[in-house]
């Protein structure tokens, strides 16, 4: 074989290797700590018109990233969950109360909470997120300063609350008093924003599995939030991620904690009804 042929065959081989693996989610199973079996794939809830099967974002990540989530010792998000566990027990504010003063042990009191939020709150007459409930407690029961909606303290606390529901299926209610908010969220999901004129659906419904430059597009499920991201080495909240996505369409974004993002969170959460709560998950 002369040098030219060698080079040509080398190039052909490189071309084969460079062909992107055919899109889609992989076939891996997620089991955390050898005991929590996660549902990462299931039939789409009835309200979804254009998708038959829903997948956790975990199924779209590389094996190296996936494995980090399979053990709490390896999952860097658990460092902040542990830190929030101490905050849970620590009194703050003028009333001298901690979260534990009223709620008791987090793993009993908060089990199942993450799976059903955002949720209609009768007393307040609106759909509330876990963040809103935490700040409601801080302000009105503890007499403490509110936390910034997508700040570190808040996101760590949400991760703690989420961690005790891991493995339970997401099951947010979209009917009854929550329906109007859910409809508003759906409207936002399908509305194109920004100079790039992209809606959530353009990437996460029409194009999941494809590459957007170097990123493997998932369905944009939020069952894994708060999520530890390798790119910024901290826990990220749902609304911070929404903000990043809307910003990427080159639009002015809504603020974390805004009514728009609360509605969008309810709608996106409902698209994951049936998947396991994974937060704190690990993504790139």
């Amino acid at each position, binding site marked *: 074989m002369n040098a030219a042929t060698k080079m040509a065959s080398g190039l052909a081989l490189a071309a084969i290797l460079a062909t992107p693996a055919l899109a889609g989610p992989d076939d891996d199973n997620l089991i955390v700590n050898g005991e929590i079996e996660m549902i990462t794939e299931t039939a789409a809830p009835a309200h979804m018109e254009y998708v038959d099967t829903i997948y956790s974002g975990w199924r779209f990540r590389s094996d190296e990233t996936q494995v980090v989530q399979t053990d709490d*010792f*390896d999952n*860097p998000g658990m*460092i902040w969950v*542990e*830190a929030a566990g101490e905050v849970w027990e620590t009194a703050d504010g003028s009333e001298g109360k901690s979260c534990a003063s009223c709620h008791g042990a987090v793993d009993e009191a908060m089990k199942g909470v993450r799976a059903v939020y955002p949720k209609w709150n009768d007393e307040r007459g609106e759909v509330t997120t876990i963040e809103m409930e935490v700040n409601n407690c801080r302000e009105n029961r503890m007499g403490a300063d509110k936390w910034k909606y997508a700040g570190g303290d808040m996101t760590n606390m949400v991760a703690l609350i989420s961690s005790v529901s891991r493995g339970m299926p997401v099951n947010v209610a979209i009917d009854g008093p929550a329906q109007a908010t859910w409809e508003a969220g759906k409207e936002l999901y399908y509305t194109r924003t920004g100079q790039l004129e992209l809606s959530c659906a353009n990437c996460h419904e029409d194009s999941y599995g494809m590459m957007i430059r170097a990123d493997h597009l998932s369905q944009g499920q939020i069952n894994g939030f708060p999520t530890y991201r390798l790119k910024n*080495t901290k826990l990220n909240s749902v609304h911070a991620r929404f903000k990043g996505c809307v910003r990427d369409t080159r639009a002015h974004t809504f603020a974390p904690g805004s009514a728009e993002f609360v509605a969008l969170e309810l709608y996106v959460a409902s698209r994951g009804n049936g998947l396991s709560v994974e937060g704190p998950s690990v993504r790139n």
Partner: protein
Amino acid sequence: MASGVKPRVKVPKSADAGEVITIKTLISHKMESGQRKDGDGNIIPRSIINRFTCEFNGEMVIDVNIEPAISTNPFFEFEAKVPESGEFVFTWYDDDGDVYTTTKKITVG
């Protein structure tokens, strides 16, 4: 002492004689490199863990020098062959002179 420092170690509780086990360690530490500046342009002083060791029944298993480029919350995973029951001693040395120690017992048999 640097705030929020907490060592964590994962070692199997038991093993067969001569078995090679996997040990995972992590210490939460901000690992300030000494190369960053604060809002006023002043250099934030270096504050890192500069050495990590693991001993088993008095014998050194691993001894690591750590430099400022190591990430926040340094994580070390390594293997060790355990010939007998005993105790692992893990030690982290902080720039500020603090020493953090954790021990884990393992039963062979």
